[in-house]
């Protein structure tokens, strides 16, 4: 195979999968319980567990970096910058939407979930941007 995937491309795929699985599950549960009284402490506990899981996964992936690939080279840094720009735009637009939702009387817990959703979407958007650039070039 003339074009094996790089460590950082695999990391982007892992990040994409981890975010979709962990937070997809979280939001699925939230949607199923929509309309019921919210158990705030249980929600926070689940959220914290998911965050720890996602961070642990990311840390473990980085430990497996092949020798010489611990630090990104100039192309990978450029790809990271482009991904950060996409994530930043998604976050800014999403945060604006959450503010509008609050102004129109949305509950604080719902708004917090919306903001979390925006942050997760930003991460997913960043990961997709990374993968696209790794595949197609910069």
């Amino acid at each position: 195979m003339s074009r094996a995937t790089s460590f950082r491309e695999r990391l982007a795929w892992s990040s994409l999968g981890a975010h979709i699985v962990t937070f997809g599950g979280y939001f699925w549960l939230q949607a199923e319980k929509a309309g019921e009284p919210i158990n705030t402490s249980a929600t926070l506990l689940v959220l914290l567990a998911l965050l720890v899981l996602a961070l642990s996964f990311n840390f473990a992936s980085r430990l497996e970096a092949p020798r010489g690939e611990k630090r990104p080279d100039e192309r990978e840094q450029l790809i990271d910058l482009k991904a950060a720009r996409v994530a930043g735009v998604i976050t800014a637009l999403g945060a604006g939407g959450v503010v509008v939702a609050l102004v129109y009387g949305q509950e604080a817990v719902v708004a917090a979930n919306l903001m979390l959703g925006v942050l997760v979407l930003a991460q997913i958007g960043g990961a997709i941007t990374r993968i696209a650039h790794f595949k197609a070039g910069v």
Partner: protein
Amino acid sequence: MAIENQIRRLRFDAGEMTQAELAERIGMTRQTVIAIEQNKYAPSLEAAFRIADAFGVPLDRVFRWTKD
């Protein structure tokens, strides 16, 4: 892209140097070498000099810019 390179040819001339070996010499990943070789990524000036140095040739033997 208006910048063309002779990296494939130079690797052949250097005894079929692999992309991984070149990547190791210039401190980049093999995937970045592949992207440069396929004209999908234009390297920085410093990286371009490092590539030329790896082959022991002047920069203009590796990269050529053509006006569109």
